[in-house]
């Protein structure tokens, strides 16, 4: 079936317009590609240039950074260390308070008399020998005067024949004892404060771990 001239014209126009639109679309696409590639290249040139400049002046820039960030890091670490130390101090202060309570007989769960006896035995065992002089604070001295035989028995049971004497001069301590041998050549500080100080150094890491500091 042949086409009428009008149909032919319409078909021709439509085909041409389609061709034209395709040409223009391809042109837009090409132009966009060219510009995109150029933008990428500009970016690459800029980055490369920055890299070269940084390698030229890198040490100066690093020095600036290290100075500023370094100072802050130092300050921050110090602040954190102080906070950790405060927390540890709180724990040891609370422990000291509890020890004072125990020494004053305020802690029902702990018998200070037994604690005192064990402290004397431990000190005497560490020093060794036959005769010991025990120093204690006024309160403990009063107790020990009344219970010297008991303490003596405890020491004998632990290390054999031993003689205990009490130093009349009261010790300035929260509790516990300082024990020395008769000629004064060996002394063992078994006061609660002394033991606490030793423990502080020994279990600080363990305490820190419980508190989640490390």
């Amino acid at each position, binding site marked *: 079936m042949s086409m009428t001239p009008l149909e032919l*014209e319409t078909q021709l126009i439509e085909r041409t317009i389609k061709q034209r639109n395709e040409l223009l679309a391809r042109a837009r696409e090409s132009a966009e590609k060219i510009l995109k590639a150029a933008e990428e290249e500009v970016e690459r040139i800029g980055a490369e240039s920055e890299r070269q400049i940084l390698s030229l002046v890198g040490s100066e*820039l690093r020095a600036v950074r290290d100075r500023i960030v370094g100072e802050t890091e130092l300050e921050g670490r110090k*602040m954190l260390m102080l906070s950790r130390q405060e927390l540890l101090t709180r724990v040891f202060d609370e*422990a000291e308070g509890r020890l004072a309570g125990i020494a004053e007989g305020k802690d029902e769960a702990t018998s200070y008399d037994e604690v005192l006896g064990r402290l004397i035995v431990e000190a005497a065992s560490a020093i060794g020998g036959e005769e010991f002089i025990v120093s204690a604070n006024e309160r403990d001295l009063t107790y020990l005067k009344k219970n010297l035989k008991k303490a003596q028995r405890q020491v004998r049971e632990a290390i054999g024949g031993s003689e205990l004497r009490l130093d009349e001069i009261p010790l300035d301590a929260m509790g516990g004892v300082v024990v020395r041998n008769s000629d004064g050549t060996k002394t063992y500080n078994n006061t609660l404060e002394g033991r606490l100080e030793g423990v502080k150094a020994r279990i600080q890491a363990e*305490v820190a771990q419980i508190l989640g500091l490390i």
Partner: protein
Amino acid sequence: MGLESVLSLGERLQRLLAEADREVEAKVAEAQRMAEEMLSKARVDAERRRTMAQRGYGIEELLEEAEEKAKEEAEKSMEDYKAKAEALKEVPEEKIAEAVTLVLQEVLPR
């Protein structure tokens, strides 16, 4: 409307396509010109900055920039430290009590 008019229309449409071709060429050429201009400017700028840096000039800006960045980094770092220090104040009481108990166990003779 006869064959003549169709042929005349054909010529007009061919012209339209030819114009479109020219338009395409112009668009692509313009894009290429713009791309060249961008690249040329970037290369010149990069070379200028590199040369200045080699001579030790123009790095004040870089130093200032580095200082600014470092200050921002330092500020962030300090915030982190403050947050960590603050978190230490939130240690549960039972943890404190557990630690105190451990200390007492170690101090008191067994």
